[in-house]
C-alpha cells in the first residue's frame, strides 16, 4: 500500500519580492514639506523655559548670539543655570542690594564673572554686552527693570527682548 504524499506549496528558493513603498513616500513628502516650513534659519536656537510664557510681537528680527537670560515667575536663569529665585513676581530681599533695591547681586556677580572669564571674554557678544532676555509676559515691568538695570551695570547694555511671532 502506497502512502499518499502530502502536497507542498511550490517555493522558489531565490525569489525576490517588491515592497510597495508608495504610501511611505507620500508620508515622507508631507513630513518634508512641514519640516521645511518650520526650518529655522536663525543663527541662534532659543529653547523657551517651560515655566515661561513669552509675549507676542510683530517683530521679525532673528536672534543673534548673546548671553541668554530667562526670567520666569519662579527663577532667574542664565542659560539653564539658576541665578536667583523669584517669588510673588519679585526677587527675594537677600538677593537685592540693601542700598539699591534694583540691584540683583547674584546676577551682577555672574555677568561680571562672564565678562572677566578667560574663555568667554574674547567673544564678540560679551565684548559688545549683548543680552537676550526671555521674560514671562505677566511679570510687572518693575521686576524686569531690575534685571535690565543690573545687566547694564555689569557692562551688558544691549538688550534684546525675545518674543513669539504673531498674536
Amino acid at each position, binding site marked *: 500500500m502506497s502512502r499518499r504524499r502530502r502536497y507542498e506549496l511550490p517555493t522558489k528558493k531565490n525569489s525576490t519580492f*517588491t515592497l510597495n*513603498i*508608495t504610501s*511611505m*513616500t507620500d508620508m*515622507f*513628502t508631507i*513630513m*518634508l514639506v512641514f*519640516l*521645511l516650513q*518650520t*526650518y*529655522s534659519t*536663525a543663527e541662534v*536656537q*532659543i529653547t*523657551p523655559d517651560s515655566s515661561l510664557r*513669552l*509675549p*507676542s*510681537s*510683530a*517683530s*521679525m*528680527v*532673528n*536672534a*543673534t548670539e548673546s548671553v541668554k537670560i530667562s526670567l520666569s515667575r519662579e527663577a532667574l536663569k542664565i542659560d539653564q543655570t539658576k541665578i536667583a529665585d523669584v517669588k510673588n513676581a519679585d526677587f527675594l530681599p537677600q538677593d537685592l542690594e540693601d542700598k*539699591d533695591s*534694583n540691584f540683583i547681586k547674584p546676577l551682577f556677580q555672574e555677568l561680571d564673572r562672564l565678562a572677566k572669564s578667560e574663555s568667554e571674554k574674547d567673544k564678540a557678544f560679551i565684548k559688545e554686552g549683548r543680552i*537676550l532676555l526671555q*521674560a*514671562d*509676559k*505677566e*511679570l*510687572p*515691568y*518693575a521686576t*524686569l*527693570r531690575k534685571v*535690565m*538695570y543690573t545687566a*547694564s551695570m555689569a557692562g551688558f547694555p544691549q538688550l*534684546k*527682548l*525675545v*518674543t*513669539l*511671532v*504673531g498674536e
Partner: protein
Amino acid sequence: MSRRIRKIKIDHNGEFELDLAPLLAVMVKLVPVLLVSSAFVQMMVIESELPQVVNEAIQRQEQQPTPTNISIELETSGINIVVTDKGQDKVETIPMKNGAYDYETLHAKLVAVKKAHPDIFKLELHPDGKVPYDEVVKVMDAARQARDTNVKFPVFDTKQGKNVETNYMFPEIVFANMMEG
C-alpha cells in the same frame, strides 16, 4: 534569402513600476536633519535692524543740540504721549478702553505725531513699575512701524539727495526710566 525584420511590439497600455527606493533613502536622511533644525515655536527679538537711510537719520537726530523729544508714559490708568518741542510740552492722554489699553488709538496718534515730526525716530518709554511686560511689548509694537502699508514717512537720503519713504515710525525705543532709583 530574404532577411526578415522582426517587428518590435510596443505595448502602449502596459504598466511599469517606478523605483521609489532611492527617493525614500534621500527622505529618510533629510527628515532627521530637518527635525533637528526645526523651530516649532518661532521666536524673534525686538531690536533695531534698520535700513541704512533710517540709521543715518537717527544719527543726524542725535547730533542735534536741542532735539524734539517724544516720550510715552505708560501708566496703570492710561497712556500719555508727551511731545517736547522747543522746551514746550504737549501731552495727549489715551484713556483705558473697557479696562484695557487702547492700542488702536495709540497707534493712530503716534502716526499723527510722526507725520508732524518725520525726522524723529527715537522714542522714550516710561512704563510704570506695575504695568505687565506684555503691555510694554504691545506699546513698543504700536510705536515701531506703521501698520497700514500705505502710510509712509519721508526720510532724507543724503546719498540720493532726495526724500525716500519708509514705514518705520519710532524704531529706536529707549527705556528712559531704567536707571532711575
